[in-house]
Protein backbone atom coordinates (compact mmCIF):
# COMPACT_ATOMS: atom_id res chain seq x y z
CA UNK A 1 0.00 0.00 0.00
CA UNK A 2 2.60 2.50 1.16
CA UNK A 3 4.89 1.50 -1.66
CA UNK A 4 2.12 2.01 -4.17
CA UNK A 5 1.31 5.40 -2.69
CA UNK A 6 4.95 6.46 -2.97
CA UNK A 7 5.09 5.26 -6.60
CA UNK A 8 1.89 7.16 -7.32
CA UNK A 9 3.29 10.35 -5.83
CA UNK A 10 6.51 9.92 -7.79
CA UNK A 11 4.64 9.18 -11.03
CA UNK A 12 2.45 12.20 -10.35
CA UNK A 13 5.45 14.40 -9.67
CA UNK A 14 7.30 13.33 -12.79
CA UNK A 15 4.16 13.81 -14.85
CA UNK A 16 3.82 17.34 -13.52
CA UNK A 17 7.48 18.13 -14.17
CA UNK A 18 7.07 16.91 -17.71
CA UNK A 19 4.01 19.06 -18.25
CA UNK A 20 5.66 22.18 -16.86
CA UNK A 21 8.73 21.67 -19.03
CA UNK A 22 6.74 21.11 -22.22
CA UNK A 23 4.28 23.91 -21.59
CA UNK A 24 7.04 26.31 -20.54
CA UNK A 25 9.00 25.46 -23.66
CA UNK A 26 5.95 26.09 -25.84
CA UNK A 27 5.16 29.30 -23.97
CA UNK A 28 8.58 30.87 -24.56
CA UNK A 29 8.98 29.57 -28.09
CA UNK A 30 5.50 29.98 -29.50
CA UNK A 31 2.87 31.60 -27.31
CA UNK A 32 4.91 34.57 -26.08
CA UNK A 33 6.18 35.82 -29.47
CA UNK A 34 2.76 35.37 -31.09
CA UNK A 35 1.07 37.13 -28.18
CA UNK A 36 3.54 40.02 -28.40
CA UNK A 37 2.91 40.36 -32.12
CA UNK A 38 -0.84 40.37 -31.51
CA UNK A 39 -0.45 42.96 -28.76
CA UNK A 40 1.80 45.21 -30.85
CA UNK A 41 -0.52 44.87 -33.85
CA UNK A 42 -3.57 46.15 -32.05
CA UNK A 43 -1.67 48.45 -29.65
CA UNK A 44 -2.98 51.61 -31.35
CA UNK A 45 -6.41 50.28 -32.22
CA UNK A 46 -7.83 48.85 -35.43
CA UNK A 47 -7.45 51.85 -37.78
CA UNK A 48 -3.66 51.69 -38.38
CA UNK A 49 -3.95 47.92 -38.93
CA UNK A 50 -6.63 48.40 -41.58
CA UNK A 51 -4.56 51.15 -43.22
CA UNK A 52 -1.44 48.97 -43.26
CA UNK A 53 -3.26 45.96 -44.73
CA UNK A 54 -5.02 47.97 -47.44
CA UNK A 55 -2.01 49.95 -48.69
CA UNK A 56 -1.21 49.45 -52.38
CA UNK A 57 2.00 47.59 -51.60
CA UNK A 58 0.29 45.32 -49.09
CA UNK A 59 -2.50 44.42 -51.51
CA UNK A 60 0.04 43.76 -54.21
CA UNK A 61 2.04 41.56 -51.87
CA UNK A 62 -1.11 39.56 -51.11
CA UNK A 63 -1.82 39.21 -54.80
CA UNK A 64 1.71 37.97 -55.50
CA UNK A 65 1.43 35.54 -52.58
CA UNK A 66 -1.91 34.26 -53.86
CA UNK A 67 -0.56 33.71 -57.38
CA UNK A 68 2.70 32.11 -56.23
CA UNK A 69 1.21 29.93 -53.47
CA UNK A 70 -1.86 29.04 -55.56
CA UNK A 71 0.21 27.98 -58.57
CA UNK A 72 2.72 26.07 -56.46
CA UNK A 73 -0.08 24.20 -54.66
CA UNK A 74 -1.81 23.39 -57.96
CA UNK A 75 1.44 22.07 -59.45
CA UNK A 76 2.26 20.07 -56.34
CA UNK A 77 -1.22 18.58 -56.18
CA UNK A 78 -0.99 17.21 -59.70
CA UNK A 79 2.62 16.16 -59.27
CA UNK A 80 2.07 14.74 -55.78
CA UNK A 81 -0.83 12.50 -56.84
CA UNK A 82 1.02 11.35 -59.96
CA UNK A 83 4.20 10.61 -58.02
CA UNK A 84 2.22 8.80 -55.31
CA UNK A 85 0.49 6.60 -57.89
CA UNK A 86 3.84 5.92 -59.54
CA UNK A 87 5.59 4.94 -56.33
CA UNK A 88 2.72 2.85 -54.91
CA UNK A 89 1.37 1.15 -58.02
CA UNK A 90 4.38 0.62 -60.23
CA UNK A 91 7.60 -1.28 -59.87
CA UNK A 92 10.39 0.19 -61.96
CA UNK A 93 14.13 0.64 -61.69
CA UNK A 94 14.90 3.76 -59.68
CA UNK A 95 11.62 3.68 -57.76
CA UNK A 96 13.35 3.75 -54.38
CA UNK A 97 15.63 6.56 -55.54
CA UNK A 98 12.59 8.61 -56.59
CA UNK A 99 10.91 7.80 -53.30
CA UNK A 100 13.94 9.10 -51.38
CA UNK A 101 14.59 12.12 -53.62
CA UNK A 102 11.10 13.47 -53.06
CA UNK A 103 11.90 14.07 -49.38
CA UNK A 104 15.02 16.08 -50.24
CA UNK A 105 13.30 19.50 -49.98
CA UNK A 106 12.65 18.83 -46.28
CA UNK A 107 16.36 18.48 -45.60
CA UNK A 108 17.75 21.15 -47.91
CA UNK A 109 17.75 24.75 -46.64
CA UNK A 110 15.34 26.91 -48.67
CA UNK A 111 18.11 29.48 -49.25
CA UNK A 112 20.20 26.75 -50.91
CA UNK A 113 17.19 25.88 -53.07
CA UNK A 114 16.91 29.52 -54.13
CA UNK A 115 20.62 29.75 -54.92
CA UNK A 116 20.49 26.48 -56.89
CA UNK A 117 17.58 27.76 -58.98
CA UNK A 118 19.44 31.01 -59.61
CA UNK A 119 22.51 29.05 -60.72
CA UNK A 120 20.41 27.09 -63.23
CA UNK A 121 17.98 29.73 -64.50
CA UNK A 122 19.81 33.03 -63.79
CA UNK A 123 20.37 35.34 -66.77
CA UNK A 124 24.07 34.71 -66.85
CA UNK A 125 23.70 30.94 -67.22
CA UNK A 126 23.21 29.15 -70.54
CA UNK A 127 19.71 27.88 -69.65
CA UNK A 128 18.70 31.30 -68.35
CA UNK A 129 20.02 33.22 -71.35
CA UNK A 130 18.38 30.80 -73.76
CA UNK A 131 15.06 31.22 -71.93
CA UNK A 132 15.55 35.00 -71.89
CA UNK A 133 15.95 34.98 -75.69
CA UNK A 134 12.62 33.11 -75.84
CA UNK A 135 11.14 35.92 -73.74
CA UNK A 136 10.86 33.89 -70.56
CA UNK A 137 12.31 35.28 -67.35
CA UNK A 138 12.50 32.86 -64.44
CA UNK A 139 14.72 34.49 -61.82
CA UNK A 140 13.60 37.84 -60.33
CA UNK A 141 10.08 37.13 -61.55
CA UNK A 142 6.96 35.13 -60.72
CA UNK A 143 7.87 31.84 -62.49
CA UNK A 144 11.03 31.49 -60.41
CA UNK A 145 9.10 32.18 -57.23
CA UNK A 146 6.54 29.53 -58.17
CA UNK A 147 9.38 27.06 -58.86
CA UNK A 148 11.04 27.79 -55.53
CA UNK A 149 7.77 27.49 -53.61
CA UNK A 150 6.83 24.27 -55.42
CA UNK A 151 10.21 22.84 -54.54
CA UNK A 152 9.99 23.47 -50.81
CA UNK A 153 6.43 22.10 -50.60
CA UNK A 154 7.16 19.18 -52.94
CA UNK A 155 6.73 16.12 -50.67
CA UNK A 156 3.69 17.25 -48.69
CA UNK A 157 0.87 16.12 -51.02
CA UNK A 158 2.60 12.91 -51.98
CA UNK A 159 3.44 11.93 -48.41
CA UNK A 160 -0.19 12.50 -47.40
CA UNK A 161 -1.57 10.39 -50.25
CA UNK A 162 0.88 7.44 -50.32
CA UNK A 163 -0.28 5.65 -47.13
CA UNK A 164 -3.94 5.88 -48.17
CA UNK A 165 -3.18 4.55 -51.64
CA UNK A 166 -1.27 1.68 -50.08
CA UNK A 167 -4.13 0.95 -47.72
CA UNK A 168 -6.95 0.93 -50.30
CA UNK A 169 -5.00 -1.33 -52.65
CA UNK A 170 -5.84 -2.03 -56.26
CA UNK A 171 -8.84 -4.30 -55.95
CA UNK A 172 -11.48 -1.57 -56.08
CA UNK A 173 -9.96 -0.25 -59.29
CA UNK A 174 -9.78 -3.73 -60.75
CA UNK A 175 -13.41 -4.31 -59.83
CA UNK A 176 -14.30 -1.04 -61.56
CA UNK A 177 -12.37 -2.21 -64.64
CA UNK A 178 -14.32 -5.46 -64.85
CA UNK A 179 -17.51 -3.38 -64.58
CA UNK A 180 -16.52 -1.43 -67.68
CA UNK A 181 -14.70 1.62 -66.33
CA UNK A 182 -11.73 2.87 -68.36
CA UNK A 183 -8.59 4.32 -66.77
CA UNK A 184 -9.95 7.89 -66.51
CA UNK A 185 -13.27 6.71 -65.06
CA UNK A 186 -11.44 4.50 -62.56
CA UNK A 187 -9.35 7.44 -61.41
CA UNK A 188 -12.18 9.96 -61.10
CA UNK A 189 -14.80 7.60 -59.68
CA UNK A 190 -12.77 5.27 -57.48
CA UNK A 191 -9.22 6.44 -56.76
CA UNK A 192 -9.88 10.15 -56.29
CA UNK A 193 -12.88 9.80 -53.95
CA UNK A 194 -10.92 7.24 -51.90
CA UNK A 195 -7.94 9.55 -51.35
CA UNK A 196 -10.02 12.73 -51.09
CA UNK A 197 -9.47 13.30 -47.37
CA UNK A 198 -5.73 12.68 -47.47
CA UNK A 199 -5.37 14.76 -50.61
CA UNK A 200 -7.17 17.72 -49.02
CA UNK A 201 -4.94 17.38 -45.97
CA UNK A 202 -1.84 17.42 -48.16
CA UNK A 203 -3.11 20.40 -50.13
CA UNK A 204 -3.79 22.44 -47.00
CA UNK A 205 -0.36 21.60 -45.59
CA UNK A 206 1.22 22.60 -48.90
CA UNK A 207 -0.72 25.84 -48.87
CA UNK A 208 0.42 26.65 -45.34
CA UNK A 209 4.01 25.87 -46.31
CA UNK A 210 3.78 27.90 -49.54
CA UNK A 211 2.27 30.96 -47.82
CA UNK A 212 5.01 31.06 -45.24
CA UNK A 213 7.96 30.37 -47.54
CA UNK A 214 10.64 33.02 -47.16
CA UNK A 215 14.21 31.92 -47.84
CA UNK A 216 13.97 30.33 -51.27
CA UNK A 217 11.57 32.99 -52.54
CA UNK A 218 13.73 35.79 -51.09
CA UNK A 219 16.71 34.60 -53.16
CA UNK A 220 14.96 34.05 -56.50
CA UNK A 221 12.54 37.00 -56.36
CA UNK A 222 15.10 39.79 -56.00
CA UNK A 223 12.54 41.35 -53.65
CA UNK A 224 11.40 44.14 -55.94
CA UNK A 225 8.82 46.09 -53.91
CA UNK A 226 5.47 46.23 -55.65
CA UNK A 227 6.61 43.62 -58.21
CA UNK A 228 8.03 40.40 -56.83
CA UNK A 229 7.36 40.74 -53.17
CA UNK A 230 5.19 38.19 -51.38
CA UNK A 231 3.49 38.96 -48.08
CA UNK A 232 6.23 37.17 -46.11
CA UNK A 233 8.95 39.18 -47.83
CA UNK A 234 6.99 42.38 -47.40
CA UNK A 235 6.86 41.85 -43.61
CA UNK A 236 10.64 42.01 -43.36
CA UNK A 237 10.73 44.95 -45.74
CA UNK A 238 8.30 46.93 -43.58
CA UNK A 239 10.21 46.02 -40.44
CA UNK A 240 13.53 47.14 -41.94
CA UNK A 241 11.90 50.42 -42.92
CA UNK A 242 10.83 51.02 -39.32
CA UNK A 243 7.11 50.60 -40.20
CA UNK A 244 6.51 48.38 -37.19
CA UNK A 245 2.73 48.68 -37.15
CA UNK A 246 2.58 47.62 -40.80
CA UNK A 247 5.02 44.76 -40.21
CA UNK A 248 3.07 43.49 -37.21
CA UNK A 249 -0.23 43.80 -39.06
CA UNK A 250 1.03 41.82 -42.06
CA UNK A 251 2.62 39.23 -39.75
CA UNK A 252 -0.63 38.82 -37.84
CA UNK A 253 -2.66 38.40 -41.01
CA UNK A 254 -0.24 35.73 -42.28
CA UNK A 255 -0.28 33.97 -38.93
CA UNK A 256 -4.09 34.03 -38.99
CA UNK A 257 -4.16 32.32 -42.41
CA UNK A 258 -1.62 29.76 -41.23
CA UNK A 259 -3.59 28.98 -38.07
CA UNK A 260 -6.76 28.71 -40.13
CA UNK A 261 -5.13 26.24 -42.55
CA UNK A 262 -3.88 24.16 -39.66
CA UNK A 263 -7.35 24.10 -38.12
CA UNK A 264 -8.80 23.02 -41.46
CA UNK A 265 -6.08 20.37 -41.86
CA UNK A 266 -6.90 19.09 -38.38
CA UNK A 267 -10.43 18.31 -39.55
CA UNK A 268 -9.22 16.83 -42.81
CA UNK A 269 -6.51 14.70 -41.28
CA UNK A 270 -7.09 11.06 -42.21
CA UNK A 271 -8.22 9.07 -39.22
CA UNK A 272 -5.50 7.03 -37.55
CA UNK A 273 -2.70 8.94 -39.23
CA UNK A 274 0.06 10.09 -36.93
CA UNK A 275 1.29 12.79 -39.29
Amino acid at each position, binding site marked *: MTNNAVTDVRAGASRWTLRVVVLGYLAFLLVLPVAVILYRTFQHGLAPVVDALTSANAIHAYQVTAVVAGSAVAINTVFGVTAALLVVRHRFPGRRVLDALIDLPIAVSPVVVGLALTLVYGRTTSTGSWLAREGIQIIFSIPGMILATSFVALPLVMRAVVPVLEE*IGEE*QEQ*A*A*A*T*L*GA*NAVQRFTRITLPSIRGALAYGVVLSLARALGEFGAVAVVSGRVVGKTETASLYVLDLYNNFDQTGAYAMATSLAAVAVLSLIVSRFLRPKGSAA
Partner: protein
Amino acid sequence: MSIKVANVSKKFGDFSALRDVSVEIPSGSLTALLGPSGGGKTTLLRVIAGLETPDEGRIEIDGVEATSLPPQRRGVGFVFQHYAAFKHMTVERNIAFGLSIRKRAKDEIKARVQELLELVHLEQFAQRYPAQLSGGQRQRMALARALAVEPKVLLLDEPFGALDAQVRKELRAWLRRLHDQVNVTTVFVTHDQEEAMEVADEIVVVADGEVKQVGSPDELYEKPASDFVMSFLGPVTTLDGKLVRPHDLELLSTAEPGAREAVVDRVTRLGFEVRVDLSTDEGAAWAQVTRATAEHLDLQPGTRIWVLPHHSRTAVPVQG
Protein backbone atom coordinates in the same frame (compact mmCIF):
# COMPACT_ATOMS: atom_id res chain seq x y z
CA MET B 1 -21.16 -17.97 -73.46
CA SER B 2 -18.40 -20.54 -73.25
CA ILE B 3 -14.83 -19.84 -72.20
CA LYS B 4 -11.87 -21.33 -73.98
CA VAL B 5 -8.40 -21.21 -72.49
CA ALA B 6 -5.71 -22.43 -74.90
CA ASN B 7 -2.07 -23.15 -73.96
CA VAL B 8 -1.87 -20.35 -71.40
CA SER B 9 1.39 -19.85 -69.50
CA LYS B 10 2.10 -17.18 -66.91
CA LYS B 11 5.23 -16.54 -64.87
CA PHE B 12 5.72 -14.20 -61.92
CA GLY B 13 9.48 -13.69 -61.89
CA ASP B 14 10.90 -17.20 -61.69
CA PHE B 15 7.67 -18.74 -60.45
CA SER B 16 5.52 -20.49 -63.04
CA ALA B 17 1.94 -19.82 -61.96
CA LEU B 18 0.44 -21.46 -65.07
CA ARG B 19 2.09 -23.91 -67.43
CA ASP B 20 0.51 -24.55 -70.79
CA VAL B 21 -3.03 -24.65 -69.41
CA SER B 22 -5.88 -25.52 -71.75
CA VAL B 23 -9.44 -25.89 -70.59
CA GLU B 24 -12.91 -25.31 -72.00
CA ILE B 25 -15.80 -24.20 -69.87
CA PRO B 26 -19.18 -24.93 -71.43
CA SER B 27 -21.87 -22.28 -71.74
CA GLY B 28 -24.27 -22.04 -68.81
CA SER B 29 -22.26 -24.29 -66.51
CA LEU B 30 -21.25 -23.73 -62.93
CA THR B 31 -17.60 -24.72 -62.78
CA ALA B 32 -15.21 -24.87 -59.85
CA LEU B 33 -11.48 -24.34 -60.19
CA LEU B 34 -10.33 -26.52 -57.32
CA GLY B 35 -6.83 -26.92 -55.99
CA PRO B 36 -4.39 -26.19 -53.21
CA SER B 37 -3.26 -22.61 -52.47
CA GLY B 38 -0.55 -21.38 -54.77
CA GLY B 39 -1.56 -23.88 -57.44
CA GLY B 40 -2.49 -21.26 -60.03
CA LYS B 41 -6.29 -21.33 -59.90
CA THR B 42 -6.71 -17.66 -58.98
CA THR B 43 -4.16 -16.67 -61.64
CA LEU B 44 -6.16 -18.65 -64.20
CA LEU B 45 -9.35 -16.83 -63.18
CA ARG B 46 -7.61 -13.45 -63.36
CA VAL B 47 -6.19 -14.28 -66.78
CA ILE B 48 -9.73 -15.05 -67.99
CA ALA B 49 -10.92 -11.70 -66.59
CA GLY B 50 -8.01 -9.79 -68.14
CA LEU B 51 -6.62 -8.73 -64.76
CA GLU B 52 -3.42 -10.62 -65.61
CA THR B 53 -1.87 -10.86 -69.06
CA PRO B 54 -0.71 -14.35 -70.00
CA ASP B 55 2.89 -14.73 -71.26
CA GLU B 56 1.66 -17.21 -73.83
CA GLY B 57 -1.61 -18.66 -75.02
CA ARG B 58 -5.07 -17.40 -75.88
CA ILE B 59 -8.40 -16.71 -74.20
CA GLU B 60 -11.71 -16.88 -76.02
CA ILE B 61 -14.94 -15.73 -74.41
CA ASP B 62 -18.19 -16.55 -76.17
CA GLY B 63 -16.28 -17.36 -79.35
CA VAL B 64 -14.56 -13.95 -79.37
CA GLU B 65 -10.78 -13.66 -79.15
CA ALA B 66 -10.24 -11.84 -75.84
CA THR B 67 -6.50 -12.31 -75.16
CA SER B 68 -5.58 -8.68 -75.81
CA LEU B 69 -8.83 -7.07 -74.62
CA PRO B 70 -8.63 -4.99 -71.41
CA PRO B 71 -10.91 -6.20 -68.59
CA GLN B 72 -13.49 -3.46 -69.18
CA ARG B 73 -14.17 -4.81 -72.68
CA ARG B 74 -14.43 -8.52 -71.91
CA GLY B 75 -17.98 -8.58 -70.57
CA VAL B 76 -17.01 -10.49 -67.45
CA GLY B 77 -18.33 -10.05 -63.94
CA PHE B 78 -15.67 -10.56 -61.29
CA VAL B 79 -16.25 -11.07 -57.59
CA PHE B 80 -13.20 -10.67 -55.38
CA GLN B 81 -12.44 -12.72 -52.31
CA HIS B 82 -12.40 -9.58 -50.16
CA TYR B 83 -15.38 -8.11 -52.03
CA ALA B 84 -13.56 -4.98 -53.34
CA ALA B 85 -16.60 -2.96 -52.28
CA PHE B 86 -16.49 0.71 -53.27
CA LYS B 87 -16.25 2.06 -49.75
CA HIS B 88 -17.32 5.59 -50.57
CA MET B 89 -20.57 4.50 -52.24
CA THR B 90 -23.84 3.18 -50.86
CA VAL B 91 -24.95 -0.36 -51.68
CA GLU B 92 -27.30 1.07 -54.29
CA ARG B 93 -24.55 3.05 -56.03
CA ASN B 94 -22.15 0.12 -55.82
CA ILE B 95 -24.64 -2.06 -57.70
CA ALA B 96 -25.46 0.75 -60.16
CA PHE B 97 -21.77 1.41 -60.95
CA GLY B 98 -21.48 -0.64 -64.14
CA LEU B 99 -24.77 0.70 -65.46
CA SER B 100 -23.89 4.33 -64.79
CA ILE B 101 -20.53 3.79 -66.56
CA ARG B 102 -22.60 2.56 -69.52
CA LYS B 103 -24.68 5.75 -69.28
CA ARG B 104 -28.02 3.96 -68.99
CA ALA B 105 -31.15 6.01 -68.31
CA LYS B 106 -31.74 6.90 -64.64
CA ASP B 107 -35.06 5.10 -64.26
CA GLU B 108 -33.72 2.04 -66.05
CA ILE B 109 -30.79 1.90 -63.59
CA LYS B 110 -33.15 2.34 -60.65
CA ALA B 111 -35.39 -0.50 -61.78
CA ARG B 112 -32.47 -2.84 -62.45
CA VAL B 113 -30.84 -2.06 -59.09
CA GLN B 114 -34.13 -2.74 -57.30
CA GLU B 115 -34.43 -6.06 -59.09
CA LEU B 116 -30.89 -7.05 -58.06
CA LEU B 117 -31.36 -5.89 -54.48
CA GLU B 118 -34.29 -8.29 -54.28
CA LEU B 119 -32.31 -11.07 -55.94
CA VAL B 120 -29.56 -10.86 -53.32
CA HIS B 121 -31.95 -10.03 -50.44
CA LEU B 122 -30.49 -6.62 -49.65
CA GLU B 123 -33.61 -4.45 -50.22
CA GLN B 124 -33.34 -3.06 -46.69
CA PHE B 125 -29.72 -2.05 -47.11
CA ALA B 126 -29.78 0.05 -50.29
CA GLN B 127 -28.73 3.23 -48.53
CA ARG B 128 -26.06 1.67 -46.29
CA TYR B 129 -22.34 1.89 -46.86
CA PRO B 130 -20.25 -1.30 -47.20
CA ALA B 131 -18.68 -0.69 -43.78
CA GLN B 132 -22.16 -1.06 -42.27
CA LEU B 133 -22.69 -4.53 -43.75
CA SER B 134 -21.63 -7.99 -42.57
CA GLY B 135 -19.19 -10.05 -44.65
CA GLY B 136 -21.93 -12.16 -46.18
CA GLN B 137 -23.97 -9.07 -47.09
CA ARG B 138 -20.94 -7.44 -48.70
CA GLN B 139 -20.30 -10.56 -50.72
CA ARG B 140 -23.92 -10.57 -51.95
CA MET B 141 -23.63 -6.89 -52.82
CA ALA B 142 -20.45 -7.61 -54.81
CA LEU B 143 -22.30 -10.38 -56.63
CA ALA B 144 -25.24 -8.11 -57.46
CA ARG B 145 -22.81 -5.46 -58.69
CA ALA B 146 -21.15 -7.97 -61.00
CA LEU B 147 -24.51 -9.27 -62.28
CA ALA B 148 -25.94 -5.78 -62.91
CA VAL B 149 -24.20 -5.38 -66.25
CA GLU B 150 -25.40 -8.81 -67.44
CA PRO B 151 -21.93 -10.25 -67.95
CA LYS B 152 -21.31 -13.04 -70.41
CA VAL B 153 -19.49 -14.93 -67.70
CA LEU B 154 -19.34 -14.57 -63.95
CA LEU B 155 -16.00 -15.20 -62.23
CA LEU B 156 -15.73 -15.59 -58.47
CA ASP B 157 -12.40 -15.74 -56.63
CA GLU B 158 -12.74 -17.76 -53.40
CA PRO B 159 -16.17 -16.17 -52.96
CA PHE B 160 -16.78 -17.60 -49.52
CA GLY B 161 -13.19 -17.82 -48.31
CA ALA B 162 -13.40 -14.90 -45.90
CA LEU B 163 -16.72 -15.90 -44.31
CA ASP B 164 -17.39 -17.99 -41.24
CA ALA B 165 -18.48 -21.59 -41.63
CA GLN B 166 -22.22 -21.09 -41.08
CA VAL B 167 -22.63 -18.16 -43.51
CA ARG B 168 -20.46 -20.01 -45.97
CA LYS B 169 -22.77 -23.01 -46.02
CA GLU B 170 -25.83 -20.79 -46.55
CA LEU B 171 -24.20 -18.81 -49.34
CA ARG B 172 -23.08 -21.98 -51.13
CA ALA B 173 -26.62 -23.27 -51.40
CA TRP B 174 -27.78 -19.79 -52.34
CA LEU B 175 -25.15 -19.49 -55.13
CA ARG B 176 -26.32 -22.82 -56.54
CA ARG B 177 -29.94 -21.62 -56.60
CA LEU B 178 -28.93 -18.24 -57.98
CA HIS B 179 -27.05 -19.88 -60.82
CA ASP B 180 -30.08 -21.98 -61.73
CA GLN B 181 -32.13 -18.77 -61.70
CA VAL B 182 -29.78 -16.47 -63.63
CA ASN B 183 -28.07 -19.17 -65.69
CA VAL B 184 -24.93 -17.23 -66.53
CA THR B 185 -21.75 -19.23 -67.17
CA THR B 186 -20.06 -19.16 -63.78
CA VAL B 187 -16.55 -20.09 -62.70
CA PHE B 188 -15.51 -20.00 -59.07
CA VAL B 189 -12.20 -20.65 -57.40
CA THR B 190 -12.05 -22.69 -54.22
CA HIS B 191 -9.57 -24.76 -52.25
CA ASP B 192 -12.38 -26.53 -50.42
CA GLN B 193 -13.25 -29.83 -52.12
CA GLU B 194 -16.52 -30.09 -50.22
CA GLU B 195 -17.57 -26.68 -51.55
CA ALA B 196 -16.65 -27.66 -55.11
CA MET B 197 -18.47 -31.01 -54.88
CA GLU B 198 -21.57 -29.43 -53.41
CA VAL B 199 -21.94 -26.44 -55.72
CA ALA B 200 -20.34 -27.18 -59.09
CA ASP B 201 -21.56 -29.08 -62.17
CA GLU B 202 -18.01 -29.47 -63.26
CA ILE B 203 -14.70 -29.34 -61.44
CA VAL B 204 -11.33 -28.39 -62.89
CA VAL B 205 -8.56 -29.55 -60.58
CA VAL B 206 -5.61 -27.14 -60.81
CA ALA B 207 -2.30 -27.68 -59.04
CA ASP B 208 1.35 -26.78 -59.72
CA GLY B 209 0.15 -24.49 -62.51
CA GLU B 210 -1.41 -27.37 -64.43
CA VAL B 211 -4.87 -28.79 -65.00
CA LYS B 212 -4.82 -32.19 -63.31
CA GLN B 213 -8.30 -33.37 -64.24
CA VAL B 214 -11.64 -32.07 -65.49
CA GLY B 215 -14.96 -33.74 -64.80
CA SER B 216 -18.20 -33.83 -62.88
CA PRO B 217 -17.93 -34.17 -59.09
CA ASP B 218 -18.94 -37.86 -59.34
CA GLU B 219 -16.42 -38.63 -62.06
CA LEU B 220 -13.64 -37.03 -60.12
CA TYR B 221 -14.54 -38.80 -56.91
CA GLU B 222 -15.07 -42.21 -58.51
CA LYS B 223 -12.42 -42.11 -61.24
CA PRO B 224 -9.60 -39.86 -60.14
CA ALA B 225 -6.86 -39.63 -62.76
CA SER B 226 -4.04 -39.62 -60.22
CA ASP B 227 -3.31 -40.20 -56.57
CA PHE B 228 -3.08 -36.42 -56.20
CA VAL B 229 -6.66 -35.87 -57.39
CA MET B 230 -7.87 -38.79 -55.32
CA SER B 231 -6.29 -37.54 -52.11
CA PHE B 232 -7.34 -33.95 -52.77
CA LEU B 233 -11.00 -34.83 -53.26
CA GLY B 234 -11.53 -36.83 -50.12
CA PRO B 235 -9.94 -38.88 -47.35
CA VAL B 236 -7.60 -41.69 -48.43
CA THR B 237 -5.59 -44.46 -46.85
CA THR B 238 -3.10 -46.96 -48.23
CA LEU B 239 -3.73 -50.68 -48.42
CA ASP B 240 -1.89 -53.28 -50.53
CA GLY B 241 0.12 -50.48 -52.10
CA LYS B 242 -3.02 -48.73 -53.31
CA LEU B 243 -4.82 -45.57 -52.29
CA VAL B 244 -8.37 -46.35 -51.23
CA ARG B 245 -11.17 -44.42 -49.59
CA PRO B 246 -11.40 -45.37 -45.90
CA HIS B 247 -15.15 -45.90 -46.28
CA ASP B 248 -14.50 -48.48 -49.02
CA LEU B 249 -12.74 -50.77 -46.50
CA GLU B 250 -14.94 -53.47 -45.02
CA LEU B 251 -13.91 -54.84 -41.63
CA LEU B 252 -14.56 -58.52 -40.98
CA SER B 253 -14.22 -60.69 -37.89
CA THR B 254 -13.06 -63.74 -39.89
CA ALA B 255 -10.66 -64.32 -42.77
CA GLU B 256 -12.07 -64.15 -46.27
CA PRO B 257 -10.42 -64.40 -49.71
CA GLY B 258 -8.76 -61.06 -50.53
CA ALA B 259 -8.95 -59.80 -46.97
CA ARG B 260 -5.82 -58.69 -45.16
CA GLU B 261 -5.16 -59.31 -41.52
CA ALA B 262 -4.84 -56.30 -39.24
CA VAL B 263 -4.79 -55.21 -35.61
CA VAL B 264 -6.89 -52.32 -34.29
CA ASP B 265 -4.72 -49.54 -32.80
CA ARG B 266 -7.30 -46.99 -31.90
CA VAL B 267 -11.03 -46.39 -32.20
CA THR B 268 -12.28 -42.78 -32.46
CA ARG B 269 -15.97 -42.03 -32.39
CA LEU B 270 -16.93 -38.95 -34.45
CA GLY B 271 -20.67 -38.86 -33.98
CA PHE B 272 -22.27 -41.08 -36.58
CA GLU B 273 -19.04 -42.50 -37.97
CA VAL B 274 -16.17 -44.27 -36.33
CA ARG B 275 -12.56 -43.95 -37.37
CA VAL B 276 -10.54 -47.12 -36.87
CA ASP B 277 -6.74 -46.93 -37.00
CA LEU B 278 -5.17 -50.22 -38.02
CA SER B 279 -1.77 -51.85 -38.30
CA THR B 280 -1.16 -54.33 -41.09
CA ASP B 281 2.16 -56.05 -41.71
CA GLU B 282 2.89 -53.50 -44.43
CA GLY B 283 2.09 -50.40 -42.39
CA ALA B 284 -0.65 -48.24 -40.92
CA ALA B 285 -4.07 -47.63 -42.47
CA TRP B 286 -7.42 -46.44 -41.31
CA ALA B 287 -11.03 -47.29 -42.04
CA GLN B 288 -14.25 -45.40 -41.66
CA VAL B 289 -17.16 -47.51 -40.44
CA THR B 290 -20.58 -46.89 -38.99
CA ARG B 291 -21.23 -46.98 -35.29
CA ALA B 292 -23.32 -50.12 -35.71
CA THR B 293 -20.46 -51.96 -37.43
CA ALA B 294 -18.01 -50.89 -34.75
CA GLU B 295 -20.32 -52.19 -32.03
CA HIS B 296 -21.12 -55.39 -33.89
CA LEU B 297 -17.40 -56.22 -34.29
CA ASP B 298 -16.71 -55.03 -30.74
CA LEU B 299 -13.68 -53.06 -31.93
CA GLN B 300 -11.11 -52.38 -29.20
CA PRO B 301 -7.42 -51.56 -29.39
CA GLY B 302 -5.70 -54.92 -29.94
CA THR B 303 -8.67 -56.62 -31.68
CA ARG B 304 -7.57 -58.85 -34.59
CA ILE B 305 -9.66 -58.27 -37.71
CA TRP B 306 -9.61 -58.67 -41.50
CA VAL B 307 -9.81 -55.78 -43.94
CA LEU B 308 -11.48 -56.25 -47.33
CA PRO B 309 -11.12 -53.44 -49.84
CA HIS B 310 -14.09 -53.02 -52.15
CA HIS B 311 -12.29 -53.51 -55.42
CA SER B 312 -15.25 -52.31 -57.43
CA ARG B 313 -14.52 -48.94 -55.84
CA THR B 314 -11.85 -46.35 -56.46
CA ALA B 315 -8.28 -47.43 -56.00
CA VAL B 316 -5.26 -45.73 -57.44
CA PRO B 317 -1.73 -47.13 -57.34
CA VAL B 318 0.52 -45.03 -55.14
CA GLN B 319 3.08 -43.24 -57.26
CA GLY B 320 6.66 -42.54 -56.25
